[in-house]
């Protein structure tokens, strides 16, 4: 109780002095907490947006996707029984051709039926309706093109465009397509009616396309049960189920990984800030050495002294947490205009308590971990320091070390829980620990060297230089804090910069060396001789490589159903591309086993990403 009273008196005095001596401590915490809470709030906003708009992004309650085929009558009947409305979409890549100029641009074609869209609304230029746009004009069916495609083809609304062998008239541009969020596309979008593609030759056997069946389930349907029924009815068909609970798994994954990474970067910032906190608390305690000695003279016990100053640090931490959370919670509102357009549309910017709690926990733990050591030093301040001067630093008593260890373990557990990745957290925190160790060694070596060289003749008569170096050499804790704080901050910045730079260099420099200038897909075997002949006639082409491609499902492993062996491994999900060759293709590396010979007979052999598959498929070996 007396500790609380004295702490209160000192807090009021510090407030009168405008928190002089605590500004560094508070700034360190505020910025760390604000960055973590801002990242968390933004992630919460995007998650909430994705979840609440799941039906719109998916275009229905659920979707069944088939590759290179459409559903058969039995499958269509099953879908009709399970839902109250269905819509089919066929998605494929093709060339959009401007007939007048013969200009050709790759486009991602979405062929839809009259029920499209089951959920949400599509926005076309001129507020045109879909049926009006598809109706076309002058006897030609209508097509809707993305504005970018129109620009690249150098055509206008009302002009003709050719898909395959069939002409369409461009009736409108596509302004908003809600069921395309987070989807990967190789070209700008084109939208046509599926039935209008008859005669185009685009959906012939061997064409690479996917067909998606969007379903509207009965009101109150349980998506878990619906998926369970799908799993039971569609085994081994290669069909993929997706529903409104996770409408954009790709976007979810990217956002989740990005936010994990950013939160860990924020944590690094908090560690840097924590070093600042530690230095600030140490300076605060050093300034209070006289007061502490007086209080002890008056009869204050070491425990009371510890609590007098711990309570003060707790109040400043609490104040910093509140200010940091306030900044972090408001940051997404301020950042909205600067977000990429698709994210700004999706994000439901609001206050997300879980993100704020996470940041507050990190902030409090960082403050406690980094201030307990200097606070424990109050135990070593003796009344005799009033006569004999400052108290030398000691190792804290074991109970403080135990508390610090427990706090570190809690911080580690929290970081793993919040980031969701053991390996990423351990690598990051391990990296920080090793960096701090190296920086402490550098600091020690620096001070040792300074002490050795300070008495050399070069420093004689140079008082400012000698005084500055002397302060650096003797102020071991201060020098160490500065070296570690600035050093770790620069280490984090340099690491982020290096990762970014390496990724960019890899993409801009390495990939073009290895990647071809053009890919051509979907060339039938019968078309290959003519295709190669044309390329040979083109002087710009210096090398052509072809590879046969089959698509298929892995249905069995070692004569057992694949799912029983491999579970839900991604290799077993949907269809996989399978190529084949007699000889080992150039630049291909065999990691285990041997390449089969040209005269191999018997069972066909295959090469698989075995290591990846083995992680979930126990017992799978070469042969």
């Amino acid at each position, binding site marked *: 109780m007396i500790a609380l009273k004295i702490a209160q008196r000192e807090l009021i005095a510090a407030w009168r002095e405008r928190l002089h001596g605590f500004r560094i401590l508070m700034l360190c915490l505020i910025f760390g907490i604000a960055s973590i809470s801002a990242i968390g709030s933004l992630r919460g906003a995007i998650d909430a947006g994705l979840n609440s708009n799941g039906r719109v992004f998916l275009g229905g309650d659920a979707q069944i996707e088939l590759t290179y085929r459409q559903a058969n009558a039995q499958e269509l009947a099953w879908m009709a029984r399970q839902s109250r409305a269905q819509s089919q979409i066929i998605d494929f890549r093709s060339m959009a051709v401007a007939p007048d100029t013969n200009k050709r641009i790759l486009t991602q074609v979405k062929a839809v039926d009259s029920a499209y869209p089951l959920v949400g609304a599509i926005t076309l230029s001129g507020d045109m309706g879909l049926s009006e746009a598809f109706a076309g004009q002058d006897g030609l069916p209508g097509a809707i093109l993305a504005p970018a495609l129109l620009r690249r083809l150098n055509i206008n609304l009302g002009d003709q465009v050719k898909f395959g062998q069939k002409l369409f008239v461009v009736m409108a541009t596509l302004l908003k397509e809600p069921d395309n969020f987070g989807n990967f596309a190789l070209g700008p979008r084109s939208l046509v009616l599926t039935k209008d593609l008859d005669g185009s030759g685009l959906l012939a056997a061997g064409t690479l396309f996917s067909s998606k069946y969007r379903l509207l389930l009965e009101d109150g349907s349980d998506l878990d049960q619906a998926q369970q029924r799908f799993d039971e009815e569609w085994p081994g068909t290669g069909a993929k189920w997706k529903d409104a609970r996770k409408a954009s798994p790709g976007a979810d994954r990217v956002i989740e990984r990005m936010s994990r990474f950013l939160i860990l970067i924020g944590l690094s910032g908090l560690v840097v800030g924590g070093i600042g906190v530690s230095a600030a608390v140490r300076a605060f305690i050093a300034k209070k050495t006289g*007061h502490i000695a007086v209080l*002890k003279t008056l009869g204050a016990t070491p425990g009371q002294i510890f609590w007098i100053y711990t309570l003060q640090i707790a109040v400043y931490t609490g104040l910093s947490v509140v200010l940091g959370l306030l900044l972090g919670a408001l940051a997404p509102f301020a950042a909205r205009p600067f977000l990429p357009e698709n994210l700004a549309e999706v994000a439901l910017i609001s206050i997300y308590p879980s993100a704020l709690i996470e940041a507050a926990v990190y902030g409090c733990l960082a403050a406690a971990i980094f201030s307990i050591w200097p606070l424990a030093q109050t135990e070593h301040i003796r009344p005799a320091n009033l006569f004999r001067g400052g108290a030398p630093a000691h190792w804290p008593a074991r109970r403080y070390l135990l508390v610090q260890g427990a706090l570190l373990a809690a911080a580690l557990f929290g970081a793993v829980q919040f980031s969701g990745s053991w390996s990423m957290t351990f690598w990051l925190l391990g990296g920080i620990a090793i960096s701090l160790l190296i920086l402490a060694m550098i600091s020690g070596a620096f001070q040792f060297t300074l002490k050795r060289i300070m008495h050399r003749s070069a420093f004689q008569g140079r008082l400012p230089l000698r005084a500055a170096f002397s302060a650096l050499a003797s102020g071991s804790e201060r020098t160490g804090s500065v070296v570690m704080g600035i050093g770790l901050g620069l280490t984090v910045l340099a690491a982020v910069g290096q990762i970014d730079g390496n990724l960019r260099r890899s993409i801009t420099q390495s990939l073009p060396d290895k990647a071809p200038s053009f890919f051509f897909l979907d060339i039938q075997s019968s078309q290959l001789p003519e295709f190669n002949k044309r390329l040979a006639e083109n002087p710009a082409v210096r090398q052509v490589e072809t590879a046969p491609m089959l698509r298929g499902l892995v249905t069995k492993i070692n004569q057992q159903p694949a799912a029983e062996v491999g579970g839900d491994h991604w290799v077993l999900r949907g269809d996989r591309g399978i190529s084949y060759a007699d000889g080992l293709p150039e630049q291909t590396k065999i990691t285990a086993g041997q390449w089969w010979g040209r005269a191999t007979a018997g069972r066909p052999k295959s090469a698989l990403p075995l290591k990846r598959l083995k992680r979930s498929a126990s017992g799978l070996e070469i042969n």
Partner: protein
Amino acid sequence: MVDILHSIDLQITQGSSCALVGPSGSGKSSLLMVMAGLEQATSGRVAVLGEDISAMSEAELAQFRRGRVGVVFQSFHLIPSMTALQNVATAIELAGQPDPFERARAKLADLGLAHRYDHFPKQMSGGEQQRVALARALAPNPKLVFADEPTGNLDAANGASIVDSLFTLTQEQADTTLILVTHDNQLAQRCDRIIDLRDGKICESQGA
């Protein structure tokens, strides 16, 4: 390691006043700290107010000092973040005694500082600060008052005033023993006993 005090065998009568004199470095302040329980002797036995404090932990020593030991420093050592009243009341609070603020007000008034209750140390003169320090040391009615060069940082007039107050107030408190460290012979002569220290040893003891 340096031996500061050795072969000290000293008993001081309760309720008396005692001056520790001697040249700088003779061990006066060290002896005062050992007797006040602010520092521990590396060997030997120290009994204060009938309790052996030689083997006490720091927490035990703090509890021993509470309300029983008052210290006046040469450099005042008031807590700058607290007002005069709070400085005095804190000592009473730490001693666990009732009505800390009322008693602090009374003690400050006794020392002529009724107009300075809410002033901070930096707003007061050196003489006023030392009077607040005196009030803080005496307010819990300690059995032992230690004063280390209490006039060392004051001019002659203020010094004389403080010394008068120190002697008057300790005499008013029954059974309170005053032990002071001083270089001032005149001040030392006011005490019942004078102990002269040289090189950590008692060289001469005059008086009762």
